[in-house]
């Protein structure tokens, strides 16, 4: 399941729903991305996430489908926020449930890696020096590419 929303989410409630959906799952893995109060050494007082409505939902659904095709998952959840967020606020939640912990952990790691370079979001930071667009991180591109071959993982590169 995927959701794109401005409002915050409740991680505990989301994971409870995911587990309830996944009878037979012994493993739930989750990743939460938060707004940091620094970036490239500078202070960040807020971050505004802009996205491409319509395409965002398609890309997230494609990423979920790809994860389900690679691992035996009982349930998958991606929640991605947009709008203006302050340091410490949640940006994104990826969660997976599987009978096996390795599948849950690897799939969750894959979800966040692919979101970084394939989800159409753009981040504008507010800093003491003014507004600044966050550049794509070359390491994120590498992390995403390492999953290019099914079954591959960041440890294989």
């Amino acid at each position, binding site marked *: 399941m995927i959701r794109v929303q401005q409002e915050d989410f409740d991680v505990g409630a989301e994971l409870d729903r995911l587990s309830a959906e996944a009878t037979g799952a012994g493993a739930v893995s989750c990743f939460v*991305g938060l707004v940091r109060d620094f970036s490239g050494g500078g202070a960040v007082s807020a971050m505004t996430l*802009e*996205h*491409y409505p*319509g*395409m965002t939902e*398609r890309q997230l659904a494609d990423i979920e489908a790809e994860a389900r095709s690679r691992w035996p998952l009982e349930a998958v959840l991606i929640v*991605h926020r947009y709008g203006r967020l302050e340091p410490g606020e949640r*940006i*994104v939640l990826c969660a997976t449930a599987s009978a096996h912990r390795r599948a849950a952990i690897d799939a969750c790691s894959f979800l*966040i890696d692919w*979101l*970084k*370079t*394939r*989800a*159409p*979001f*753009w*981040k*504008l930071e507010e800093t003491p020096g003014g507004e600044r*667009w*966050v*550049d*794509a*991180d070359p390491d*994120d591109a590498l992390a995403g590419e390492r999953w290019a071959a099914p079954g591959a993982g960041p440890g294989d590169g």
Partner: protein
Amino acid sequence: MQMLYFGWVRQRIGVPAETVAPPAGVIDVETLIDWLSGRSDAYAEALGNREALRVAVNQELCEFDSPVGAGDEVALFPPMTGG
């Protein structure tokens, strides 16, 4: 043709979306960007660094040689920074 702009591409062009009617020579993303770049300095500046431009046609990521036509939704934007 429906154009959409995001991130610093949107900011430099100054509008998030517009409807355009390119001439007959515009057949793919490359020629579309050439044509848009000739409209004003703002477009030329926004679209000048093609290495840093990404494109989606009808909400699917595409290369610059992808064909574009009258009914398409074409989005130009910087590399995505999701997650």
